[in-house]
Every structure is written in C-alpha cells, then in structure tokens.
C-alpha cells in the first residue's frame, strides 16, 4: 500500500519535473544573441586550448623519442 503510494508519488514528481524542465528548455533555447555568441566563443576557445595542449604534449613525446641515447 505504502509502496504503491510512494511509486505514484515518484511518478507524479517525475511528470511534474518534466513539465518544469520543458518550460526551462524554452527559456534556454531563446537566449539573447550576444549570450549565445559568447557561449559559442567560450566553447571554441576551450576546444582550441585542448588542441594546443595535445599538440605540445605530442611534440614533447616526439622530441623525447629522437633524443640520442648516451
């Protein structure tokens, strides 16, 4: 009995939460242009930094491999 009520409450909570987040999605999808652009720029900067780090790590490894053995 209690388990049934608990499951029903959980289900109702999930449905309610989905309705709330559906509304939040509408808001997030309609962010002002300048905010969206700054988020895009931040993302691209983060990806570029990762690329740079990986390139320098690769370069260090390659350089190490070609170091003449004593």
């Amino acid at each position, binding site marked *: 009995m209690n388990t049934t009520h608990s499951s029903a409450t959980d289900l109702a909570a999930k449905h*309610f*939460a989905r309705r*709330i987040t559906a509304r*939040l999605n509408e808001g*997030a999808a309609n962010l002002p242009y300048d905010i969206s652009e700054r*988020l895009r720029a931040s993302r691209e900067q*983060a*990806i570029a930094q*990762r690329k740079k780090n990986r390139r320098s790590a690769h370069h260090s490894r390659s350089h190490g491999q070609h170091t003449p053995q004593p």
Partner: protein
Amino acid sequence: MATEQELSDFLKSVEKRAFKRSLYHVRNEESALDIVQDSMMKLSTHYGDKPANELPMLFHRILSNCALDWFRRQKTHNALFSHMSDFEKSGDEGGEFDLLEAWSGPDDGERAHSAEDLARRAQTLQSIEIEIQQLPARQREAFLMRYWEEMDVAETAAAMGCSEGSVKTHCFRAVQALSKALKAKGISL
C-alpha cells in the same frame, strides 16, 4: 577518450543550460558567463582525454565548483553569507503537502500559440525561474542535474559529492517546494 568532435558536441549541447544554471545561482549574467567559460576550459584542458560518457558528470561537477569559487571570491560579507547560507541544510519538511494533489494531471496536448498564449507562457517561465532561483542551492543543483540534465541518481550524487539518498531527498524537496509555490501563484503546468 572523447574525440574533439565529441567534446565540442557535448559542450554545445550543454552550454545554454549551464549558463542558465549558473545564472539561477549567481544572479548575474557576466559572472554566469565567466563561470561557464572557466568550466569549459577546465573540462577541455584537464579532462579532455576522458571517455565521452564521463563528460556530463565531470562538467557538472566542475560547473558547481566554479560557482562555489565565484562565491568565495566575493569580497563583501553580505554577498558571501546571503548565498553561502543556501548551502546549509534546511530543516523544513514541507508539512503535509501532497504532490499528487498539486499535480494537474496528464498533458492535454499542444495549445495554440496565439500572442496571448505566448505572453502567458513567458510569464509562466519567469515565475518558474524565480522559484528555481529561490530554492536552496543544493536542492536546485540536484533538481536541475537530475531532471534538466537527465543525469541518473548515481551520476548526480557523484557530481554533487554526496550520497544517492541525499540526491533523492534534495530532488523531492525541490519538487515539493516548486509545486507549492507555483500552485500558490495559480500556475498549473
């Protein structure tokens, strides 16, 4: 390891919600943008070699930590304590509130998007966002990660650094508080 494309796609999929989440938290657009930018950079440079399926949990943990760092950097006593107090446990249990009673029932389908309807929807969204901002921080974090980011309880617990039981409790209290507040405003979803 996540490919560059996977990492980029992940960030693109999450950036707007991350901005809104930070905004609910710090209530300042510039700061929210800085927090998201820092989080993206940290994920990309420190955890970019992790498998793609670990990115959501890592990113949301970083985002939460960056928001906390932002609070720590605030200089004034008032700014610090008015928000940091949100992280303390709340003792309120929500009384005899019945969620089943508050929930208006199954979706009745798409409604016409007239100008009046759009205005009403915008007003409803604003009310929802205000109520979300007013939730205690841990409840808001748990609710948004669990239901908006669609993370499971274990992932949410890992991202928040707490037990799965705490996540469930925070989520339930958040749902209770939101239901009660929206009902009081005469808003049915």
